[in-house]
C-alpha cells in the first residue's frame, strides 16, 4: 500500500461508494418498481403486488390466467402472447449457439496455444474484431450476405450469427486457462504411448472442464442479451426475447415490462453466479 494521506483515501472510498451506487441503483430501482401496484402512473408508488409477475407467468402458460389481475381492465396494458414464443426462441438460439461457439472457440484456443505459425499473433488479435465491431455493422453485413446467397432467415440464421462473436469470447476464456496450464500431465500421457486424440480426450479435456463450462455460460448469457444482430437476422418464428422487449418498450411502457426485465436480470445473474461457482478454485489436484 502506498503512503496516502487520509483525505486522499477517503475521497477514493467515497468515489467508490458512489460508483457502485451508480452501477446498481437503476437495476435495483427497476426491480423495486416491478412490485408497484399502480396501474396508471407507473412512477407513483401505491402498494406492493406480485401481480405483474403473475401476469407474465400466466402469459407463459405457467399458471392459469383466470384470475383478475391488477389492471386487467386497462386495455393499454395488453399482455402480448408473443412473449412465450420469444422466450422459447431465445432459449433455443442461446443453447445452440453457445454449444457451437464453445466447440469452435475451444478448438481455436487449443490450436492457438499449441501450434506456432506465421501470422499467429495477428490472428489472435483479429479474433477480437467480431467482439469490438459495433453490432449494427455486423448485423447488417450478415443480413446483406444472407440475402445475397438467398439463405432463409429464421432461427438458423440467428444461431449462425451469434456463433461468430460468441466463439471469440470462448476462445479468450479457454485461451487464458490454457496459458496458465501445466503441460506435464499431457506430456506424461504422450510418453506412455497414448495417441494424441486419447490424450486430448482423457487428459486435456477434464482439465479444461471448468473453463469450458464457464465459457459456455458466458456465451449463453451474451446470446440471451443480444438485440441488434437478432433484430436483423431473424425471420419466421425466431423473434427473440430482447427483440420482443424492444418493440414492447417502444410501444407502451407497461409495468409488466418491469417484471419481465427483473426476471431477466435475475436469470442472467443466476447464470453468472453458476459460472463462477463452477470455476471456483478447487482444493484437490492441479
Amino acid at each position, binding site marked *: 500500500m*502506498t*503512503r496516502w*494521506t487520509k483525505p486522499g483515501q477517503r*475521497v*477514493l472510498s467515497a*468515489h467508490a461508494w458512489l*460508483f457502485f451506487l*451508480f*452501477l446498481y441503483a*437503476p*437495476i435495483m*430501482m427497476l426491480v423495486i*418498481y416491478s412490485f408497484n401496484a399502480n396501474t396508471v*402512473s*407507473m*412512477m*407513483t408508488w401505491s402498494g406492493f403486488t406480485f401481480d405483474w409477475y403473475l401476469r407474465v407467468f400466466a402469459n407463459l402458460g405457467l399458471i392459469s390466467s383466470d384470475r383478475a389481475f391488477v389492471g386487467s381492465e386497462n386495455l393499454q396494458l395488453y399482455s402480448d402472447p408473443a412473449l412465450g414464443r420469444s422466450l422459447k426462441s431465445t432459449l433455443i438460439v442461446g443453447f445452440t449457439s453457445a454449444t457451437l461457439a464453445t466447440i*469452435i*472457440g475451444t*478448438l*481455436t484456443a487449443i*490450436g492457438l496455444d499449441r*501450434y506456432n505459425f506465421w501470422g499467429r499473433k495477428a*490472428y489472435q*488479435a*483479429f479474433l477480437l*474484431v*467480431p467482439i*469490438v*465491431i*459495433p*453490432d*449494427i*455493422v455486423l448485423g*447488417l453485413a*450478415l*443480413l*446483406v*450476405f444472407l440475402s*445475397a446467397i438467398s439463405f432463409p432467415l429464421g432461427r438458423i440464421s440467428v444461431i*449462425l450469427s451469434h456463433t*461468430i462473436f460468441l*466463439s471469440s469470447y470462448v476462445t479468450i476464456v479457454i485461451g487464458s486457462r490454457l496459458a496458465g496450464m501445466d503441460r506435464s500431465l499431457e506430456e506424461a500421457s*504422450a*510418453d*506412455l*504411448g497414448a*495417441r*494424441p486424440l486419447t490424450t486430448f480426450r482423457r487428459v486435456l479435456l477434464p482439465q479444461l472442464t471448468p473453463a469450458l463450462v464457464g465459457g459456455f455460460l458466458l456465451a449463453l448469457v451474451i446470446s440471451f*442479451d443480444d*438485440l*441488434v444482430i437478432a433484430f436483423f437476422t431473424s425471420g419466421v418464428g425466431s423473434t427473440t426475447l430482447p427483440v420482443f*422487449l*424492444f418493440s414492447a*418498450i417502444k410501444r407502451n411502457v407497461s409495468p409488466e*415490462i418491469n417484471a419481465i*426485465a427483473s426476471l431477466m*436480470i435475475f436469470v*442472467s*445473474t443466476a447464470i453468472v453466479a453458476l459460472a463462477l461457482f463452477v470455476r471456483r478454485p478447487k482444493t484437490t489436484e492441479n
Partner: protein
Amino acid sequence: MTAAAPPARNTGKPRKWVGPLITLGPGMLMLLALFLVPIALVTIYSVLTGDTYGGVKWELSPAAYKRLVGMPDLEELRDTWEFVYLWIIIKSIGLAAVTALLALIVGYPAAYYIARRGDKQKYFLLFLVTLPFFANALVRMYAWILILRKDGILNNALQGMGLIHEPLQMIYTPGAVAVAMLYQYLPFMVLPLFASIEKLDGSLIEASFDLGARRFTTFRRVVLPMTMPGVVAGLVLVFVPALGNFVAPTLIGGGKDLYLSTLLAQAFLTARDWPFGSAVATFLSVVVVLALLAIAMSNGERKAGAPQS
C-alpha cells in the same frame, strides 16, 4: 508395436498438419464465411449503384461516398457541397468520445480503489463491477428511461426534495444518451484499467514520494504513464461500441437526431439505399480497425521500451 525398441512417443509426426487443421480449421472457416465475406460484401456494395427498392446493381459508382463526404453530385440534385453526413459523423464521434472520457473520469478512481484492495476483496469487487453487464443491455437502458422521464424517478425525487418545481426535460437529450451509454460501458473501462493498475510497482510510487513529489505530480508523472496501456484500452473499448450503439439514441435520444447507427438503419430500411448504408458501415469498420491498431501499438511500445517518465 515391436517388442524390440521402447514405445516411441507418439507425436503423430507424419500427419503434422492434422492437429492444426482440426483445431484451427473450423474457427477460421467460420470467420471467413460468416465474418470476412459479409464485411467484404458490404464494402463492395458501397461502390456499386443502388436499385430502386433496395439491393444493388452491379455497376460501379462513387455516388455513395460522394454523398457521405458531401461532394456536389448533379444526379443527386446536389449543386453545392453539403455537409449533412459529415456533421452526423462528427456528432457521433463527439458523443462517443465524451462517453469514453466520462467513463475514464468515473472509472479510473474506482479501478484504482479496487486494485489497491486485498486479494479477496479485489476480485469480489471486480465481480460486482461486471455483474450488471450481464443483465440485458436493453433492460438496463430501459431502467434509465424510467429514471429520466419527465414523470420519472429522478424528477420525482428532485421535486419531492423541493429542489425544482417543474419536471426537467432530461430524457431525449444528447446528455441523457451519453449517461446511458456511460452506464452501459463502464465495466469495459474499469476492467482494463484494473489490469494495468494492478501491475503497478508500488515501490516506484514510494520512491516518487520519497523524492518529495506531491500526490498529483506522482500521479501525473508516474502512475498515469505506467497505466497508459490500460487507459488506451479502456478508452477504445468504450469509444468503439458507443460509436455504433443503436439502442441508446433510439430509446433515450427520442429520434430527433441522427447518429451513425440510426443513419445506418435508416439507409438500409427506410431509404433502401444499400450502397450508401454500406458506405457508412464501411466507414465504421475502418474506425474499428484503426482503434484496435491503436491498442496494439500502445501495447507494443509498452513492451519494447523502458517505463516512460
